[in-house]
């Protein structure tokens, strides 16, 4: 219908290694990109700021985790701690007077270094045990953060972020913040799309599928694991820093707690391990739907003239958030990305029979 194709049939290697294997996908992406650019002029600033912006930054962060968990297959339950490292080091650097461009890079690099510590755990264990170790490391980092006033910003444990300025331009408007987030998310997405086609991307997948077999094929899984953790941590660090600089404005340890680590992992898994488009969906779902459901409950109860306890209302989003994770996993363990893929494959050859690869 939209695709006007009978299926995807590659006739040569170049065609198989294209980013967009179907022209319609490329057109769709270009269209969405343009909408993204025009968003500040279409979407009211309240929505832009409280929905679009966090969505984009969390997507960038989730893509980073997807790199290490979805592609390299290494479970990571300490991702928020790595984001915290980036956020705090950037902000300290910026407060110290380092220009923001460099402060962000410093944040990313510090995260890379600390994040690579997680890789050492990954060298020894995997699967469940790696998840538990990274979880414990998250607790250690949390502890260090809350127990060192020098890092977390004194007795109130909150650290004011200096005004963001990029390319000599102070950024103070909602539109400005939005474009920063948009730019970062696009950058990470392009990086990930390209990574998929390179030898590095394939090596990561080899490491995920079988460490041992990868080693026999000559893929040095030690090197690639560290590389995967370092790269993903860089993305985490910058995303964490931008989150504080454009959204929270005040860094506090709770913003990067265990619950947040679990949340990012949920975004990635609900979106679909290894799926880039899936991460966009996953973040949107986890970030936005609980709030929407809560809004619905309020409207409904008002409409029916019922009084709902404030406390109940406060906890409904959490219950919905948990339920969403469970439901999506039960419907399609490979996540929203896979569901999207199924629909796309179906539409691709509609009105004919199912798509056969």
């Amino acid at each position, binding site marked *: 219908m939209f695709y006007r194709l009978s299926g995807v049939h590659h006739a040569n290697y170049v065609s198989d290694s294209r980013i967009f294997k179907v022209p319609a996908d490329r057109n769709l992406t270009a269209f969405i990109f343009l909408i993204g650019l025009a968003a500040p002029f279409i979407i009211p600033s309240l929505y832009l700021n409280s929905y679009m912006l966090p969505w984009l930054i969390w997507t960038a962060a989730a893509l980073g985790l997807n790199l290490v*968990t979805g592609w390299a297959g290494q*479970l990571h339950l300490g991702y928020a701690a790595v984001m915290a490292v980036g956020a705090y080091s950037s902000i300290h650097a910026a407060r110290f007077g380092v220009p923001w461009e460099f402060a962000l890079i410093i944040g990313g690099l510090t995260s890379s270094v600390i994040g690579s510590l997680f890789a050492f*755990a990954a060298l*020894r*264990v995997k*699967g*469940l*045990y790696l*998840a*538990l*170790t990274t*979880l*414990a*490391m998250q*607790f*250690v980092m949390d*502890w260090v953060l809350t*127990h060192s006033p020098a890092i977390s910003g004194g007795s109130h444990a909150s650290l004011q972020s200096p005004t963001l300025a990029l390319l000599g331009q102070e950024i103070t408007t909602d539109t400005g913040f939005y474009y920063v987030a948009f730019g970062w998310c696009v950058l990470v997405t392009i990086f990930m799309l390209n990574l998929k086609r390179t030898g590095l991307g394939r090596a990561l997948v080899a490491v995920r599928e079988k460490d041992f077999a990868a080693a026999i094929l000559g893929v040095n899984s030690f090197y690639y694991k560290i590389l995967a953790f370092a790269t993903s941590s860089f993305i985490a660090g910058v995303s964490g820093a931008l989150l504080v600089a454009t959204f929270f404005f005040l860094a506090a340890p709770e913003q990067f707690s265990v619950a947040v680590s*679990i949340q990012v*992992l*949920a975004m990635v*898994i609900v979106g679909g*391990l290894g799926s880039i488009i899936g991460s966009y969906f996953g973040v949107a779902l986890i970030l936005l739907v609980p709030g929407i459901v809560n809004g619905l409950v309020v409207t409904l109860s008002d409409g029916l003239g019922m009084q709902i*306890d404030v*406390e*109940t209302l*406060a*906890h*409904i*989003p*959490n*219950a*919905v*958030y*948990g*339920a*969403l*994770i*469970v439901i999506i*996993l*039960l419907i399609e*363990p490979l996540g929203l990305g896979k569901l999207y893929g199924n629909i796309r494959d179906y539409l691709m050859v509609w009105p004919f029979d199912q798509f056969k690869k």
Partner: protein
Amino acid sequence: MDWVFLSELAINGALTGLLYSLFAIGLVLIYKASSVPNLAQGGLTMVGAYVVLALARDVGLPLWLAIPLAAVVMFGLGFGIERVALRRLAGRPVVMILMLTLGLDIFLRGTTLAIWGGTSRSMELGVSYDPLFFDDIFISRIHLVGAGVALALFVAFMLFFRTRTGIKLRAIADDYMASWSVGISVERGVGLSWALASVVAVAAGVIWGEIQGVDQALSLLLLKGLTVAVLGGLDSILGAVIAGIILGVVENVVSDFLDPLVGGGSRELIVAAVLILTVMIRPHGLFGRHDIERV
């Protein structure tokens, strides 16, 4: 060195540790019977405590009736969880199962608080708060009661895993496919393990609820429970008991030294460190099954 003080720390640590074991036994049960790491045990424990209170306060039953009734309710809930959720993901990669149990945990906690609210409630078991004295050593009564419950459950489950049903559960954990092939109902077995773990959650919820109040914080026992379970070997009930005692003593004694140095609150750090060290040095814990390499 003050030996009396140190032994008081150690004894109380061991008792607290047994209470961690009480929690960890639930984790071990499910792992032993299905190789599923249940990160929802914290949520289950919280639900267990709230259900007891709901039956006792809201319905007005006496505690001695409310607790067994809550155990029955939770037994059903455990079966339900397998039926609705775990069954569909059997045999999927561990990432998805971990995420499923995490999602379940969030859901259980959110729902409990949405229904009963977040303000801390007290259990009021009626155990006296006056400590017992042995020579110069203080011991809390509720800790003693809890340790007793943990040991009783330990004995009960040790015996259970020698029965025919228990053996079948262990068989399921070893190999789902082979279990199906000889007619073992894997679904029912996994369901039973969740049901039993939910009953353990009631016990842990009641004891810990009495100690620290019934609220959100009950679900935070998960980290300690996990540490104990891993240190003990994840599928060993004996391991969970011994590891609980070890963790309790280490935590109590070390934090006593460490707290003045770092300004307090070092317990969590110690627990996390024990978890990391265990996994790095001896992933299968003290008594865990080794994965047998086949040539």
